[in-house]
């Protein structure tokens, strides 16, 4: 009999704040964490808005760079919620699988600056440790006394969801009973300038699926999930937050930054997730869309939903939370999976903030104006990334 995969703990840090309760309250109020960027001077940048996780360094027990602190704080919350701990006498065997696009880029940038300016020769090499993403996973193993493998996945903006999918494979294969999985990325002028150079950043509002959408607004954060084998969790007597019943992934094999306009790859990933979950499109109560707010992505995602769900694509309530938390790149898939879990447990779907004008290329049942209170048993959550990476996850109420 195939093993079942459940989530027993989550840790979430975004521009909305830290923790499940704060996030839930902000989602219910339709609050946005997007504001003027404070972490670097934007006077020479084309745009000046971002969703920074301000104040994460307060109440912090960990050392290290911003990426490590984000990850470790989110892990601490997830372990506490799952009532999991590890000790020398009774060590917990759990791989740490994290997705990120650029890892410890802030340390990397400092290293690059010192190298380019040829200074701090001895000190600068120490910065490389935090730059390499595997350090964040290794820190989790060390700080929480786990025995296991540090695994870092890079699937661009689908990295976080990739990590959750990989965790589900590990549980189903029987190689692990517990996996620490999630995604993270920090805000930096590196990515802000890069996305601006690609003309993908909205100057004012991020409004996914709206006819007047003009791009995304970057954010930062970390989302960590404790993923367990069902029987292992039941024996521990811990509360089960949701079950991961389906995961699908594919590649467009099309372009390094643009999504394939035929949406066949993305539709394939969604179909795979639905098939693995053994559900029909009519079973899906809510879609947490990737919804970046760019012209090409939102049109492609709409087409993918129509290809994979048929006529139901236009009926199922859908929203993107990126106008609230920004596009957090490698963290987004994990953060949106956690927000989907909030939707399941608290019976509401967040609104698609800033949505006003329907677009004939995005014929979907978009939740606008206010969050929708409704019973939610099954959620489909999508993530797509540069290079044509497509991932889809089905989460169900347990």
């Amino acid at each position, binding site marked *: 009999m195939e093993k079942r995969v459940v989530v027993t703990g989550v840790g979430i840090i975004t521009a909305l704040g830290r923790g499940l309760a704060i996030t839930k309250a902000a989602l219910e109020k339709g609050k946005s964490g997007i504001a003027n960027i404070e972490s670097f001077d934007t006077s020479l*940048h*084309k745009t000046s808005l971002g969703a920074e996780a301000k104040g994460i360094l307060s109440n912090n027990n960990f050392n290290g760079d911003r990426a490590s602190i984000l990850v470790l704080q989110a892990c601490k919350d997830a372990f506490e919620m799952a009532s999991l701990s590890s000790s*020398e006498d009774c060590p917990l065997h759990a791989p740490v699988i994290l997705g990120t*696009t*650029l*890892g410890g880029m802030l340390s*990397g*940038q400092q*290293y*690059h600056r010192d*190298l*380019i300016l040829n200074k701090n020769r001895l000190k*600068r*090499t120490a910065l*490389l440790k935090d730059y*390499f*993403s*595997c350090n964040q996973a*290794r820190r989790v*193993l*060390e700080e929480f006394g786990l*025995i296991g*493998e*540090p*695994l*870092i*996945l*890079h*699937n*661009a903006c689908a990295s976080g969801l*990739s990590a959750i999918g*990989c965790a589900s*494979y*590990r549980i*189903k*294969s029987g*190689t692990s009973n517990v996996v620490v999985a999630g995604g993270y990325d920090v805000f930096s*002028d590196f990515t*802000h*300038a*890069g*996305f*601006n*150079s*690609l003309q993908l950043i909205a100057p004012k509002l991020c409004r996914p699926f709206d006819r007047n959408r003009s791009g995304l607004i970057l954010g930062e954060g970390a989302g960590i999930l404790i993923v367990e084998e069902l029987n292992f969790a039941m024996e521990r007597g811990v509360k089960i937050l949701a079950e991961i019943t389906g995961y699908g*992934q*594919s*590649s*467009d*094999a*099309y372009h*390094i930054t643009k999504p394939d306009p035929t949406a066949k*790859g993305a539709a*394939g990933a969604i179909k*795979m997730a639905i098939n693995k979950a053994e559900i029909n499109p009519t079973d899906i109560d809510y879609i947490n869309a990737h919804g970046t707010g760019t012209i090409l992505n939102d049109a492609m995602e709409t087409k993918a939903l129509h290809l994979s769900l048929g006529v139901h694509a236009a009926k199922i309530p859908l929203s993107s939370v990126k106008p609230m938390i920004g596009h957090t790149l490698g963290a987004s898939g994990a953060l949106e999976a956690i927000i989907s879990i909030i939707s399941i447990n608290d019976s509401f779907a967040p609104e698609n903030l800033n949505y006003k004008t329907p677009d004939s290329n995005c014929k979907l049942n978009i939740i606008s104006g206010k969050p929708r209170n409704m019973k939610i048993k099954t959620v489909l959550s999508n993530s797509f*990334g*540069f*290079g*044509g*990476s497509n991932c889809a996850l089905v989460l169900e109420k347990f």
Partner: protein
Amino acid sequence: MMRDKIVISGIGMIGDFGAGKKDFCTFLSVRKSISDLCFDDYMDTSPLRRADELSYCATIAAKLALQDAKLDHLNAVCNKRIGVVLGTTHGSLAYSIDYNKELIMNGPAMVSPMLFSNSVLNAPSSYVSAALNIQGASITISGYTPVFQALKYAMDLIRQDILDCCLVGGVDVYNEIILDGYSNCIKDTSMLKNRYGGSGFVVVESAESQKKRGVVGYAEIQGTQTFCVSSQNKKSDNIFNSQHLLDSRCSPGVDYVLASYNQDGAGVKFEKYLLENTKENNVVNCTKIFGHTFAASESFQIIFGAMALQGSNDLSGLDASIARNKNLDSLMISKSFKASASYSIMTKMERRLEK
């Protein structure tokens, strides 16, 4: 349960030795400049015209592996059941620095969008997928033993019927920045700067698929495992001494160990462990053959093991002792570097180690 058995059915590689199996076997004796290689000799490189050097290397090595596995003429339906899992330690570090240089020197309004998109770590695997029209999962793994981790991931994807076949590879190329970064922590930096790196790929698939397609396999992969070997992790010693090898499927008595280790604390511990658990202490240090080229040398190490188990001729250019031994049944391939130690056990096709 035929899907339980995973085999290597194709190999491909590129580096300063040249490209392909014949050149690979002369690894120690022939040294070329990578600029001597004409990438167009191996494939139509037009899909790569905006790609970086890493993506060129990875795509050509992947193409050669697909050809070797007789998988290079598949239709679109089949391509959805093939994936790419690519390991790298540094990925596009050089491009990140070039991009950052533009950012610092010229300001954020002047940065190149192409440099930015090539600085994203999954760029090489995406180019492999796009250039070779591979539509299954395309994943990049970074770390200190990323190719072993890629192998494990690919095995999961095949065993759980997500894919039929998967290209598993490694890519890293030498640059001065890597030397700058490691000059304080690698004692013998000649291992770094005397080699270019490059890329190696293997095609892994279920034995069922390999037999159905009627192609020759190189080796069966019994399993692969990775551990964190941080000096702060007090359990590291226990991991090496008490962990059952690979889900108890194999005894530790393998014929040879193809190891790669440096002389830091974890490396010494790992070396000791290997020597204690190998028949006649047959340990070959692959770092001396392939140098320290991170995921590139890691992929070459795995390819070397697969060729040795198949009984390939002309391996004397890599290691004389392995080349003399034509009756290898089993190998452990291992790597210990910095925070990670990984190993994989492979056996000759159709052979199983004693429980």
